[in-house]
């Protein structure tokens, strides 16, 4: 019996102690007409050897492609240490650190994680993480409504340069609490939101403004001006940032004169594999005075009975298991194991290593844009500084081109026509430090062939 230790003797002894003659008798409080005979549609038990073979076959089917998509999830090198240690049983198979004395390992890791995220974002405090970047933005929006008591409108301005998936998630998760997300269009020539678009809202009751930096197109928003405008109009600023970029980009805590109020984003770039979209984690930081409105678990340092330093979950009165219907969120878990991996990643890279990763990503994407733009029928859509990704414009529909690239085992980018039809035949491409010059060359030559063939035909 897989994973069940009981011998026939054990079973007999235990049933005798309970005073029943079979295991079935233990289910006698369930109305018998509801009981089922078995699960005929579930596959039969398989050995570890058979399942191993099956999973190897399936994984092998998915592993031949060179990836040039970013769009919110980035392929970075992950040092071997990270997952080797993260999957140690003591981290892997522990639960939420409610019993602090028996969970000092997990708790200290989270405390160190909180310190690193606060440092990266230039804020004072961090929570222990949320599910992913998109849900972290939804929670930030709800937090902004709780914080900004002067605003009655529950209106949030969201540039269309914020990830479309994040915007969708916000609507699903926060829409039922009457939050209104109003889209602010980006300027067609620059790929960032112009100040004029915000100034159209001068003097109106706006609860918060969301700014993604770098934005979904890899472009830099004028964060200082927007932040100052928002504060002047009584709105809070929610920053959505890429943590790798924060090794080199101005941290949200220093945006404008007063800094952003809530900072959130996707933690995946810090040591978490792409893995079809999860598990990732969302990070969230804010100032100390606002911490009581922050959702999710928070770890604090304190002392024990002997005066030794130790760690514990704190401010739990915000949370659902204490506050129930009046909690800051229904969230219960954080993404503890993934955060453990990220803490190790940040430790190994350090500020200098992370800055090198950022620099390499920028230069590889730059090389990619140059190589592809040299092809007839391809041109960069915007110019100027970018990070991680860039928008290209093709002279024909993107979908069929991507399909042909996929046949050559190149995942050539993310088609923007679904989310941004106004951009025409636009393609979002990304090259991180993991894409070599050879990878970029083979993408360029494949694309050249495909576009030339199409022209001949």
């Amino acid at each position, binding site marked *: 019996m897989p994973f069940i230790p009981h011998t026939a003797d054990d079973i007999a*002894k235990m049933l005798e102690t309970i005073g029943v003659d079979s295991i079935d008798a*233990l289910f006698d*409080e369930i109305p018998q007409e509801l009981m089922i005979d078995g699960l005929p549609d*579930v596959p039969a038990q398989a050995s570890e050897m058979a399942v*191993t073979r099956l999973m190897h076959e399936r994984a092998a089917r998915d592993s031949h492609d060179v990836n040039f998509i970013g769009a919110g999830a980035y392929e970075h090198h992950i040092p071997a240490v990270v997952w080797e240690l993260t999957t140690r049983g003591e981290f892997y198979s522990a639960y939420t650190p409610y019993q602090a004395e028996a969970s000092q390992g997990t708790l200290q*890791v989270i405390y160190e994680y909180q310190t690193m995220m606060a440092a990266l974002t230039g804020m004072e405090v961090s929570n222990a993480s949320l599910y992913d970047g998109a849900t972290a933005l939804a929670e930030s929006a709800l937090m902004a409504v709780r914080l900004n008591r002067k605003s009655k409108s529950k209106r949030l301005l969201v540039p269309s340069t914020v990830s479309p998936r994040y915007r969708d998630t916000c609507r699903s998760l926060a829409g039922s*609490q009457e939050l209104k997300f109003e889209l602010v269009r980006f300027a067609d020539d620059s790929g960032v939101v112009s100040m004029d678009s915000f100034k159209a809202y001068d003097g109106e009751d706006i609860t918060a403004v969301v700014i993604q930096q770098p934005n979904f197109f890899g472009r830099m928003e004028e964060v200082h001006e927007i932040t100052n405008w928002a504060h002047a109009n009584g709105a809070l600023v929610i920053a959505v940032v890429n943590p790798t970029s924060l090794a080199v980009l101005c941290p949200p805590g220093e945006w404008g004169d007063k800094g952003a109020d809530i900072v959130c984003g996707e933690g995946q770039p810090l040591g978490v594999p792409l893995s079809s979209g999860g598990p990732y984690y969302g990070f969230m930081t804010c100032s100390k005075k606002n911490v009581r409105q922050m959702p999710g678990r928070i770890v604090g340092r304190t002392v024990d009975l002997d005066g030794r330093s130790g760690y514990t979950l704190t*401010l739990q009165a915000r949370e659902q298991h*204490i506050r129930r*219907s009046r909690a800051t969120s229904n969230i219960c878990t954080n993404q503890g194991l993934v955060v453990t991996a990220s803490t190790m990643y940040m430790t190994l890279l350090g500020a200098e290593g992370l800055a090198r990763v950022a620099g390499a990503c920028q230069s590889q994407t730059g090389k990619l844009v140059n190589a592809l733009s040299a092809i007839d029928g391809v041109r960069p859509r915007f110019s100027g500084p970018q990070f991680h990704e860039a928008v290209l414009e093709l002279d024909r529909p993107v979908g069929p081109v991507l399909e042909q690239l996929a046949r050559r085992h190149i995942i050539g980018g993310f088609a923007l026509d679904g989310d941004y039809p106004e951009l025409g035949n636009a393609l979002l491409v990304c090259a991180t430090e993991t894409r070599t010059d050879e990878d970029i060359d083979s993408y360029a030559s494949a694309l050249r062939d495909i576009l030339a063939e199409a022209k001949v035909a």
Partner: protein
Amino acid sequence: MTEETSIFEKSSKGRRATAQAPLDAQPFDAPDRFLRKKAPLLPEVTELQTVRHFTRLSQKNFSIDTNFYPLGSCTMKYNPRACNTLAMLPGFLGRHPLAPASSGQGYMETMFELQEILKSVTGMEGVSLTPMAGAQGEFAGVAMIRAYHLARGEEHRNEILVPDAAHGTNPATAIMCGCKVVELPTDAEGDVDIDALKKALGPNTAGIMLTNPSTLGVFERHIAEIEKLVHDAGGLLYYDGANLNAILGKVRPGDMGFDVIHMNLHKTFSTPHGGGGPGSGAVGVGKRLLPFMPVPVVGKTDSGFDWLTEKELPQSIGRLSGFMGNAGVLLRAYVYARLLGREGMQRVSEFATLNANYLMARLKEEGFEIAFPTRRASHEFIVTLKSEAKEYGTTATDFAKGLLDHECHSPTVYFPLLVPECLLIEPTETESYEALERFIQAMVDLRRLAETDPDRMHGAPYSTPVRRLDELKAAKSLDLTWHSEATA
């Protein structure tokens, strides 16, 4: 065990784990106003220092791999290693979530099969794997109930009935979905108070959230009557799958008449708890709620497997995450389901129930008071230490901390809220007879200690890396990040 200094205190300016970062990176280039002026405070240490630090920290944790962990309602069973190894194959780890479906057929076929397995196990008509934790599954469930009523023009149906014993996530979720919470009392034997239910039902009822077996560790015997009452009143039934382990392969929420269920795959399907996540809260739905499932869902077409999104499910409650939920957790759940198969799944509930009832019978034999003594335990049960509190002044917390000195993790304490000084004990099916006996002996020893030296009980634990922590200080003088001046 000695105190482990923070990684920041181990840092030395200029030290590097040089192998980790790209060697020939160009400096980042952007106009000055976009740039960071001062490098962030991250550690500067070597690879060996990193390995030693985190290995030593791991050794300060209790975990299933090292300790008996009878945490009620959390299903801390053995997490088979094969699940981790096979979910971390390079083909799965390397796949970008937005890569075309055609280049991820191995992964998508696996997800499709997992959806089918979970449908069979729960007796539901459709499954969406996208919710990332139990609480998000709950959100999806209640949001679907709301969407169903809205689609029928019954916007006024916004009351969600929640038994007082329920997990805190239930009422918090109802609020997040824009609903009101109506709390239902529990009767003396642990079932929902039917008269109170009848009174609570009305034209504004959206639905009821039930955990069955309940958080009191007993099966809700009036489930058929509750189902009829709620459906007749125009409401829907939500099944909180926290305790699905107790009934796996024996009775299905779909057959009990539930319209929607969330499953905690990190409980029933043994994916790791990871020190508090990631979880996975897949949802299953009956016919009424099929059109409202959260997207994306994996569909099967003539040419293979593809994503179903709002295009195919226009009434969907929408997207709950940036991509499609905790994919890696789902792969682990799939491997677990295949290793168990249909036979193994039934054994899960059988032996979880056997262990719980044995432990309950033995603790009763040893003189502990069982909260619902006339009832059969499901996969968990409640001991109340109210007489120990009265006689010796020792609380449930004292016992919980004392157990740590016996190398057992504590059961869940003070939940459910309606039983005083309670321990909610869930041994799970993967624990042996000997492990259960050691726990019983520890409880007996602790009660003797409570009798003879209650002060020593108040001071427990003594053998853990730290002793009881000053939580008041933690909340009052907040220290949430490391600062060089904070070092003692």
